[in-house]
């Protein structure tokens, strides 16, 4: 009898232990299932604070709905690294931040042409709209700030009315120029252009010629595009600086370093707000998620959020009048 009781107890203990093991297994299965079904976004991003700010903007906004895994892309990152990350995380969507990420992911798609690619969104990369057609199942947000955003912010600050803006551009940027002409027209601003060939032995001479032409047409402001063929040390020294200094015109630039007082070139910089760019990207990601992880009628967007920087030393040096009381609306004032 006592032996029976012992056996029964032993049996029940074993059964209890088995039940616990089963429960544990069930929990593990559920956890794994949840992981497998989790909405993961794989972020391929270039190194740097600006790009990590973009990720913060996205992950802050989508907390609880989409989790983010990151691969920082540097010179040593290969297509195989991307393949490994995709296999590991099984992402529902891929976010490409910076030109190096866009290039690497394009190579990844080319290396595995028969695979199904999740939707991807490219941002914080220069001229992203020129690269997106080469990526399957992709959309994006441009990095370049349209002139209209810059000039609308700037004219509020300026005492003199701004009616005409001049820009020198290369012919491959014709569509960008045309688009900006239309946006500016809606705001009552005329954008006039000095068109250059894509390549030329005497590019600096041609820049100087076109810039002088714009000044002669009586433009109120010069808009400097982020194009390394147009803005480099030689071009600055030979073409831009001599004419800009003489004309005393305000210059809108797209990079903060071009506002340096020593350089004596730019007076206003309108640059992307990287956190805001991340929040904007999160709304694109949400739309993709709501459409069952598909890109449906989502064109390439313009950046919405910007930071304004003003160099008042240069404004003062060129005797350009501005409303001091409105400097409180500017993100950064260089004195």
């Amino acid at each position: 009898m006592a032996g029976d009781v012992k056996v029964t107890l032993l049996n029940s203990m074993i059964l209890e232990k088995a039940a616990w093991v089963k429960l544990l297994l069930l929990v593990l299965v559920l956890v794994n299932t949840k992981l497998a079904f989790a909405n993961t976004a794989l972020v391929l991003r270039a190194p740097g604070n600006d790009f990590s700010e973009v990720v913060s903007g996205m992950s802050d906004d989508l907390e609880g709905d989409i989790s983010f895994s990151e691969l920082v892309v540097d010179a040593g990152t290969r297509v195989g690294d991307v393949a490994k990350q995709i296999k590991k995380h099984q992402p529902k969507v891929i976010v490409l931040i910076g030109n190096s990420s866009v290039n690497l992911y394009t190579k990844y798609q080319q290396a595995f042409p028969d695979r199904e690619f999740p939707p991807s969104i490219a941002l914080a990369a220069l001229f992203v709209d020129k690269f997106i057609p080469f990526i399957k199942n992709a959309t994006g947000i441009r990095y370049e700030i349209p002139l209209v955003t810059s000039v609308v912010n700037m004219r509020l600050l300026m005492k003199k009315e701004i009616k005409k803006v001049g820009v020198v551009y290369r012919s491959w940027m014709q569509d960008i120029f045309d688009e900006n002409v239309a946006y500016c027209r809606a705001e009552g601003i005329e954008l006039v252009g000095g068109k250059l060939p894509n390549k030329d032995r005497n590019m600096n001479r041609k820049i100087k010629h076109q810039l002088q032409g714009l000044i002669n047409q009586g433009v109120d402001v010069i808009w400097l595009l982020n194009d390394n063929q147009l803005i480099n040390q030689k071009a600055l020294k030979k073409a831009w600086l001599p004419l800009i200094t003489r004309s005393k015109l305000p210059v809108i630039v797209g990079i903060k370093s071009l506002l340096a007082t020593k350089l004596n070139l730019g007076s206003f910089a309108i640059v992307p707000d990287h956190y805001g760019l991340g929040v904007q990207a999160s709304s694109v990601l949400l739309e993709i998620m709501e459409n069952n992880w598909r890109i449906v009628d989502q064109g390439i967007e313009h950046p919405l959020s910007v930071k304004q920087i003003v160099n008042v030393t240069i404004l003062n040096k060129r005797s350009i009048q501005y409303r001091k009381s409105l400097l409180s609306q500017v993100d950064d004032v260089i004195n």
Partner: protein
Amino acid sequence: MHSKQAIFLIFTLTFSSVVQAESLFVFLPTQVRAKVMQQQISQICPELEVTVFGRGKDFRRQIKNTPPSAVLSLMPIIERLGSFDPVLKGAKNGQTREKYVIVSVGRPLTMQDIAQKKIGVVDLLGRKPMGEFIAGIFPVAVKLKRVTKTEDLLPLLTFGSVEAVLVSESHFLQLKAKSNLNLVASSSNLTMSLVNLALSGANAKEKLLRCVSRFDDKINSTLGVDQWLAMSK
């Protein structure tokens, strides 16, 4: 050496707890940059530790980490925090509430026009609560396009990213002053109180009321008010 460090640590901790200032958090959408407003309020109220937030997410995170003595914000934001009691309400031209309008380009829109369309708003509450807030106001379902700063609403209209934006009447006037687009407004049936001061307890009440009473025209104008009224219980 170790005992000296320990004494210094105890002294520092004791001293810091004695002189720790009451804190005021400010979060509301304005054209003026947060750091500028923070400097202005801090100058007027040096006895308070003032932090002005430009982004809702930072404000909510900081409230959790180091709850302040008081907040200056809009009522829906204060209500969501839960643990703050409003004691002062801002008024402008005798009014403590302001109408909100639907701003579009070209022609005014009715509620039916915006059904299922994208509407731009400044994100005051965070993604999900903001969606719930708007769903509770609008008789039709809309898709929200949220931005972090007030000035980001104009580009939404410029690039046709949304059908319309939802802004206060005073913000509509600012948009009209800034842009040459044919901006038109229609009623949204939403009115919201202007900025309020709310406290987390009664400890620092007098100090905080004194601080707000010292606000000059410049600060009040930035906050969108010209007068402060006590809340009736």
